[in-house]
């Protein structure tokens, strides 16, 4: 894990969709081992910011560094960064448990030692271990994505509204896991509408307005 450089360092970020500016001169600093939750109304650019930090969207202008380097599509980047900014397309003919096992094995983990069964149990998916992910409800798919993202080793978690489609019990359970992730030295950057969930996840809350040097177009 890289700890001597900030996990995320964004400055002077500009993004627009056509003629509509979404991010205007946005800056964000997340230290390694810190949890940060970005909040703000719909359409203010939270997801766009996370997508830019994940290298899934190109900014019009600005500087983004993740652990001191530009985010990119290299395997080194994706071994450090785990994100749920984009929903996964599931593999055909592979069960819920096998998806989790596949990800663990790809990272050189033993599925039993990594706690695949415990994670599925913790996310309320133990009864669906033999199901194929497309047959799950949207909330269950969200839990599976989070379970897999948390199972694999990573230094930075980028989560876009992880509390979405989760029932209250699952919310507190996921918040506890994220808090544990940060306590273990991981860095968490997420967007959320739920301040209680964010605080329970061990994250510092920042509003989008505070990140923009000037006002965003949406505000």
């Amino acid at each position, binding site marked *: 894990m890289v700890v001597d450089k900030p996990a995320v360092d964004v400055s002077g970020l500009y993004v627009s969709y056509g003629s509509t500016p979404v991010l205007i001169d946005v800056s964000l600093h997340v230290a390694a081992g810190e949890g940060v939750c970005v909040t703000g109304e719909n359409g203010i650019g939270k997801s766009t910011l996370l997508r830019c930090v994940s290298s899934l969207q190109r900014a019009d202008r600005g500087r983004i560094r993740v652990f001191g380097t530009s985010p990119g599509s290299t395997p080194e980047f*994706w071994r450090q960064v785990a994100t749920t900014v*984009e929903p996964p397309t599931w593999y055909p003919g592979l069960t819920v448990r096998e998806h989790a*096992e596949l990800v663990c094995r790809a990272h050189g983990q033993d599925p039993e030692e990594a706690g695949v069964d415990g994670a599925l149990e913790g996310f309320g998916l133990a009864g669906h271990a033999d199901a194929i992910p497309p047959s799950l409800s949207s909330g269950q798919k969200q839990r599976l994505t989070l379970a897999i993202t948390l199972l694999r080793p990573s230094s930075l978690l980028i989560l876009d509204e992880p509390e979405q489609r989760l029932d209250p019990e699952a919310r507190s359970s996921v918040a506890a896991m994220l808090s544990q992730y940060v306590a273990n030295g991981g860095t968490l950057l997420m967007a959320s509408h739920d301040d209680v969930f964010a605080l329970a996840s061990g994250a510092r809350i920042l509003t989008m307005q505070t990140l923009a040097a000037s006002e965003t177009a949406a505000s």
Partner: protein
Amino acid sequence: MTTIQPTDFRTLRRWVRRTQAEHRERGATAGNVYFAILFVAVVGGMVHRQLAVIFWPASPNASVLAGAALILAGVGGLFLALRRLGPLGLSRPAASWFLTAPVSRRKLLIPSLRLAAAGAAVAGALYSIAVVGHAADRPLPGSSGVLLPVVGALLGVVLLLAALAAQSRGAWGSRADNVAGLLLAAGLAGFVIDSAVAAPRATASWPAAAVAIVAAALALLVVPLLALAVTRLAGTPNDRILEAAKTAGTLMDSAFGVEPSFVIEMVERRYWANRRLRSRRLWGRLPVLTAQDLLLVLRRPRRLLWIAGAAALPALFEHAPAWVVALVVLLGGMIAGGVSTGNIRTDAGNPVMLRLLGLDSRTAITQRLWVPTLLSGLWYAAALSLLDALGDLPAGPWWALGLTLAPVGAVAAIRKARAGFVRNELLPLDTPMGSISPGPLLNSVIGPDLLLLGLPAMVEIAQGHPLSWMTVLVQAVVSVTGAQAYVSGSTAHDRVELTANR
């Protein structure tokens, strides 16, 4: 409670049609009809000779065995096609708006039944003309010539009614599909046996009286069954109709967008949605993605059986030019290798899972190359050995040549799986026959183009000389070098995505 009176569906449909017509340009319908007729006339004029060869060759050229095989394959194939299409369906808008509306279910579904019956009858009639044209002794007695297509049409309607019953009462539907699959397989096996043995030709005309009796019996069967089907039409479960509507919609999307991947994805999704799986541990000694591919293949045993059986199909081309046989063999190995490339298709379409796995594209493709190589190699070896055993190839170690072709079929299948969507944004090409969109054409050659790596084998088969070990060695070197060049040229250790180069 408010009682809702059923709306007269015919009035509703008339209103919809009238409203739609008001939004069309004047003369648009007439223009569409004109262009459709012109298209049929132009294409018919261009291919009428080829159609004559398919449906009514100058003289019968198939044995009694081949004729029987044609009938079996036709019955099985038509039933399976009807089952895949519904057969009773609605358009997607009709399924959305009318299925839940207070309209007569029977009146809603009758046009669909009428269309399906007409389609099945036409397919049956055309197919029976082809069977008679290829296998029946000539001249045909006067009435048989007219009645045999009628028998075919009635048989088509019987198959439709059976598919309809399977659609509304699903319990025996899968068993009926199995039987139809067996009939199709038996028909294909019959063709292969016919190509290996000198089966006798039909020597006597089919007796007109017997044909008339069969036609009358089928008509007596069809009329009451059709009436029964109409009375029970309203009982067709909604989920089956919705599924058929989605199928029809996807087929239309695929046809208008010239995008076959929509259909492939739908078929795959439905297959897995109906399977009950048990999680198992991935084989720890294999590379993780190889283990995943192997699991995917082993979970589709029936598809493996079909692929194994298809190794006999190149034998059907014994009378075709040798280069055609070579091409069929090379394509067959690519299709066999493609059985395990569903995971590559997923990764090429959306690399989210690859990012979660954190593997670079070269490692991913290298690991995913093993299972297609195994499947292609076994298929090539089986197909060439069978051709050799049937005496369609000169002497030589053809099984060894088949094994050396393994990387060729595998990389072609992988490249095809990575091809992605058809590029419809490309500028159309102007030809004497009109504008042609190059996107579908380009997409269809991505993958098969790598079969050029099998050129040494193709030349060897086309020349018809005895096969030497030197040729086997040359093919092995070309295959391995070509596959390595493909992997290193289309992947990188510093990139996760598969789509930058295919």
